[in-house]
C-alpha cells in the first residue's frame, strides 16, 4: 500500500518502521556499532544508564509528587494553576531530594 498522506502520517510510517528495525537489530550488530563508536558509545550508554537511574530514584522517592503533577497535566488544570514544563521537570529533581513543591503563583504545599 502506498501512503499519499500528509507529512505527519508519512513520518509515523517511517518512525514505526525504523523503530521496528532498531528493536529487531541482532545483538551482535548493535555490539559492533557500539564498539565502532568507541568512547562515544560508552559515554552514550552511561548517559542512558544515568537517566534510567534518575527515573528509578524519582519513582521511589517522589512518585506521589510527580503523579500529582501528571494528573493535573492531563486535565488542563496544570495550565490553570500555571504549572510550567520547567516546574514539572523541577518537580522530578526536587522530589528526588525530598523537597516540598510549590505551585507557581499559588500557596506553597
Amino acid at each position, binding site marked *: *500500500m*502506498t*501512503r*499519499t*498522506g*500528509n*507529512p*505527519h*502520517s*508519512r*513520518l509515523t*510510517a*517511517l*518512525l514505526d*518502521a*525504523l*523503530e521496528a*528495525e*532498531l*528493536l529487531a*537489530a541482532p*545483538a551482535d*550488530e*548493535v*555490539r*559492533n*556499532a*557500539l564498539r*565502532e*563508536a568507541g568512547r*562515544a*558509545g560508552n559515554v*552514550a*550508554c552511561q*548517559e*542512558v*544508564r544515568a*537517566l*534510567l537511574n*534518575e*527515573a*528509578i530514584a*524519582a*519513582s521511589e522517592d517522589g*512518585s506521589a509528587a*510527580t*503523579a500529582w503533577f*501528571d494528573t493535573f*497535566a*492531563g486535565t*488542563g488544570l496544570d*495550565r490553570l494553576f500555571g504549572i510550567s*514544563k520547567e516546574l514539572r*521537570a523541577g518537580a*522530578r529533581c526536587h522530589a528526588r531530594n525530598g523537597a516540598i513543591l510549590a505551585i507557581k503563583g499559588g500557596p506553597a504545599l
Partner: protein
Amino acid sequence: MADASQQAKEWGRYGPGPGGATPRLMRGVGRFVQVIDLKAVPPERDVGAALAALSEEDLLRLRAIARLRARSLPDGMSWSDLLHEAVLRALTGARPWPPGVSLLAFLAGVMRSIGDEQWRRHRRQHDLPAPGDGGEAHDPERACAAAEALAAIQQLFASDDAALKVIKGLINGMAAEEIRRHYGLTAVEYDTTRRRIRRTLLRYDLAWSWP
C-alpha cells in the same frame, strides 16, 4: 474494581504457601484475612529490575529510538525528557507493562503515546484549535514539524542511494517486497541496506547532534 495484579501490588504478596504450595495473596488483619489463590494472577513484572538488567546494546537501542521519537516534538521536549517520562510512567505503573511484550518495545510504545500527548498539551497551552475531522494528521503545526523531521532523517542517508530508496518506500508505507520490486533491489541488496540503515541510526547519532 482493581484487577488481581493491582490487588497484589496493594496488599503485598505472600508465597509460596506451606510446603511450597501455590502462592497466595493475603489481605486484612488477624482473623479477617482473605487468602486468594494466585494461580490465576499473572506474575507482576518488575520494571525496575528489568531496567537495571538492560545490556549496553539495549541502552543504545533505547537511546536511538528516543532520539527518533523526540525529533518532531513541540516545546523543545528532548529525547532524554521523553525517555525519562516514559520510564517514570512504566515504573509508577501509570502505564502497565503488558505480558508478552519486551521492555524495549513497551517503552517505545509509551514514548510514542507521550509524543501524541505532548502535541495535545501544546495545543491546549497555546489555545490552538483541535484538529478537525482529519484528526492529528490535519494539525498544520504538527505537519510542519513532521516535514522537517522527515527531511532531517532523509538527510542522514543523503550519501546512500539504496538507503534513501528504502527510506522513501517506508515513508510511503510500502512493505519490504513492494520496496524491493519498486526500486529494483535484490533480496541481498535490500537486507544489506537495512543493516546500513540500522547501523547509521545506532551509531551516527553518537557523532551527529540532533537539535
